[in-house]
């Protein structure tokens, strides 16, 4: 049975109907904005210092990481408070394998995607089929993240303990005829950009198709989706695995780029920071995941240089703000501006936020 929009929820249909007229213009504007952003990002390293290039590269990779959370939290409504588990597992898998084999190539990269995905499948099986949802899922994943970080600290022989693994070999991808070497700042930046575009396209494809429709249905009302014959638990676990794979890729590339991986990249701090990135960008808006990451990281640069050690306080404030002040994030504000540009603002209800919802 296919899920028609009418079955998702009356609410969604109502919105879709209201927005249909404005949709084409808005969609075009959004696409234009995204393309302009892409042109800017492609051109960015030409005019920037190597520090700025590295900053932007990390932001892109963390943006991919935020995207992985946005898929399950924004689209499916399941908040993982331990998303760094997947990022860190990807990084550690690549780091450990590459250090042993002496090179980071296809095999290592694939493993770094497969291990977190497998972890997501296994943990997801026990938790999701054990009917752990909502707040409980958030806490259990947070605790998992904490415990895995402590394991990484104490399991010195494999993970390098507190220090982590330093001097991870950089990525070399042999192609017929030549080899792609990711050693320079520039090449690493473009690798991150390509990863961002590819994962965005994949997520976008998943979120807009049949699969994505079921995820939205689960977010709106899981029981209802189940009544229509969907095995929602299977969908949730699959979405978790995809999310784990994407986060693992981000972690692996981050490790290959910075040549190190440390326990805090598995831990609660990164796990909760990514929640802020997604929330600031706007839950459910896939481009917003990147925007939020950029904005918060820029702010972190400023704050950390002015008030050393006070960043966690600001993260705490962000959490309060996202609950009490701006639950819908930047993407919502930008959409409002775009709609004004489209000249259709008056026709839309003030609450209408099409497509991304």
């Amino acid at each position, binding site marked *: 049975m296919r899920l028609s929009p009418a079955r998702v929820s009356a609410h969604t249909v109502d919105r879709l109907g209201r927005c249909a007229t404005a949709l084409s213009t808005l969609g075009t504007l959004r696409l234009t904005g995204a393309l302009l952003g892409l042109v800017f990002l492609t051109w960015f390293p030409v005019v920037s210092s190597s520090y700025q290039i590295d900053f932007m590269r990390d932001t892109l990779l963390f943006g991919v990481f935020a995207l992985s959370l946005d898929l399950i939290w924004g689209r499916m409504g399941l908040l993982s408070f331990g998303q760094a588990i997947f990022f860190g597992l990807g990084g550690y898998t690549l780091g450990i394998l590459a250090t042993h084999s002496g090179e980071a190539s296809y095999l290592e990269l694939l493993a770094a995607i497969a291990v977190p995905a497998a972890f997501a499948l296994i943990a997801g099986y026990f938790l999701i089929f054990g009917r752990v949802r909502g707040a409980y899922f958030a806490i259990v994943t947070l605790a998992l993240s904490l415990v895995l970080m402590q394991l990484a600290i104490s399991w010195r022989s494999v993970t390098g303990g507190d220090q982590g693994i330093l001097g991870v070999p950089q990525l070399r991808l042999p192609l017929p005829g030549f080899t792609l070497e990711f050693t320079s700042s520039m090449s690493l930046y473009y690798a991150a950009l390509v990863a961002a575009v590819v994962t965005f396209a994949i997520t976008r494809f998943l979120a807009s198709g049949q699969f994505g429709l079921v995820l939205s249905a689960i977010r709106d009302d899981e029981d209802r989706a189940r009544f229509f014959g969907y095995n929602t638990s299977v969908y949730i676990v699959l979405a978790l695995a995809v999310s784990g794979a994407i986060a693992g890729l981000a972690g692996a590339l981050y490790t290959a780029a910075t040549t190190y991986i440390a326990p805090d990249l598995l831990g609660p701090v990164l796990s909760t920071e990514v929640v802020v990135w997604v929330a600031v960008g706007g839950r459910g808006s896939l481009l917003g995941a990147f925007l939020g990451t950029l904005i918060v990281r820029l702010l972190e640069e400023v704050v950390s240089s002015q008030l050393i050690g*006070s960043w966690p306080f600001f993260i705490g404030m962000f959490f309060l703000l996202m609950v009490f002040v701006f639950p819908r994030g930047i993407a919502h504000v930008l959409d409002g501006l775009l709609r004004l540009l489209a000249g259709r603002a008056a026709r839309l209800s003030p609450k209408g936020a099409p497509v991304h919802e």
Partner: protein
Amino acid sequence: VLADTLTQVLNAASLISLLILIALGLGVILGLMGVINLAHGELVTIGAYVLIVATNLQLPFAVGLIAAFPAGALVGALIERGMIHFLYRRPLDTILATYGLSLILQQGIQYVFGPAPREANDPFGTAVNVLGAYYPTYRLFIIACGIVATALALYMFLRTDFGLTVRAIFQNREMAAALGINTDRMNMIAFALGSGLAALAGVLVAPMVNVTPFMGTQYLATAFFAVLVGGAGSLLGVVGGSTFIGGLQTLIGTFAAQTFAQASVLGLAIVLIRFRPTGLFKGKV
């Protein structure tokens, strides 16, 4: 060998006592309001710093012990009125907001007391001979406190009007409200009491560990699993869950590193949830 075993059992008992104190508040708040308070760990920290302040003022241990409960209860009541109160029926937002609050509290405590670990003195500083094993008096005192607090909580829950009211809300909030119970006020009281217990646990644990602004997180995670394994919203569940988690952690900790013990307990708890989603000890009380 007997002495070693006995020491381990006592170690487990003192850990379980602390866990129960922390998990009781967490479990009652969860059962009563469906709220998971991620700042609950910071109430443990606040309790520990109450003792540090008392020590700095040259006051005896007992003053810190007595002051912690009202201090924690006051902070708890403020949190409930100022934040949780606006977030009922929004469990995910409560998680986000209380997590933010816990970060802010940690930073606040660090701002006031500094990041360096503090130490509180063991008020007894002696060991007693328990069937051939020398065991710190203080840990026995913790076990006694745990037993007394649990007995008091159970008594309150089962034998007083207050407990009856709480149980009524546990079962059916709307019906309880319809019968004239001021559920709003009960929320605040329960939150304050649970917070007070966490602060009490903080005072008790302080002489045995390094007191830092971030010490609460660890206890929160373990206590939460005790609640989850035991079954939310049941006092006996909390006690059973704490015993299970604390006992297992001590047991595994005797032949493996503490972090491995913690990880395996967590892993086991996750597997258990799959097969017993409502908890191991889900009972009527």
